[in-house]
């Protein structure tokens, strides 16, 4: 099963939050432990919400763009890592080993697999497995 571990940061400042060297080294050690255990699939950090944007849509589908930061929420996504494990309990066990940075939580979410879809959705999503395979072959640079 795949799980996405999403970091949520509270009260993030508007300025671009770069990890400090010590924080980066600590996080690297943790990611390496996931890698050594053979569970790490992907990971990324995100630049600040202040550098981002949100797109909302009207009922007619008309997009409206708003620059970050976003007042709607006190929690900001800081980054994620994706793991492949046998159970939610195993994902939780890994999350508990994450370095305890201040003002942050880890949200553990199960990733949807094609096989999870009922037959009618699988039919509608017939190209999905191929899309996923093409993504994997276009490796991150």
């Amino acid at each position, binding site marked *: 099963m795949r*799980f*996405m571990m*999403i970091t949520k940061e509270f009260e993030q400042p508007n300025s671009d939050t*770069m*990890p400090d*060297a*010590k924080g*980066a*080294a600590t*996080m*690297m050690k943790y990611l*390496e432990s996931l890698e050594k255990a053979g569970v790490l*699939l*992907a*990971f*990324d*950090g*995100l*630049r600040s*919400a202040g*550098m*981002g*944007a*949100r*797109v909302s*849509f*009207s009922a*007619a*589908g008309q*997009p409206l*763009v708003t620059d970050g930061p976003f007042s*709607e*929420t006190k*929690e900001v*996504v800081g980054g994620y890592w994706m793991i492949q494990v046998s159970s*939610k309990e195993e994902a*939780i066990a890994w*999350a*508990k080993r994450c370095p*305890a*940075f201040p003002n942050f939580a*880890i*949200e*553990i*979410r*199960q*990733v*949807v697999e094609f096989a*999870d*879809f009922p037959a009618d*959705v699988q039919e509608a999503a017939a*190209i*999905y497995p191929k*899309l996923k395979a*093409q*993504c*994997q072959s276009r*490796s*991150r*640079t």
Partner: protein
Amino acid sequence: MTSQKVDKHMRFMMLMIPKGYEKATAGSMPDAKVVAEMMKYNKSLQQAGVLLALDGLHPPAMGARIRFSGGKPKVTDGPFSEAKEVIGGYWIIQVRSKEEAIEWACRSPLSEDCVIEIRQVQEMADFPPDVQQAAAGFAELQAGRPA
């Protein structure tokens, strides 16, 4: 403006935030018609050569949250009563600018029940030198990703 960056590609993560998804029950499935429209969009991203990754996420009811208190982890099973919004899925795209990423987000077949948050993905080169040194294994770790 910064002409030297014209050919440089940046990665952006588009986080799909469906309204009310924080309350969705375990095993909730999207509507087949909605999925069909979304697949058309996903295919357009792929055909344009910008799609790096995408996934859907099961509702928080099937997840958990970890907070740290005094350095100790505290686990809460989903759903999360304090969450006002949650991610339903994401795309990672590689484009030349934030404006281009925004354009792609605007083309998605969504309506008022959904918001897309666009965030730039950190690259090694973005980090100050001391952080790059501390994260020295970063690039190898990423490069070592299985196909």
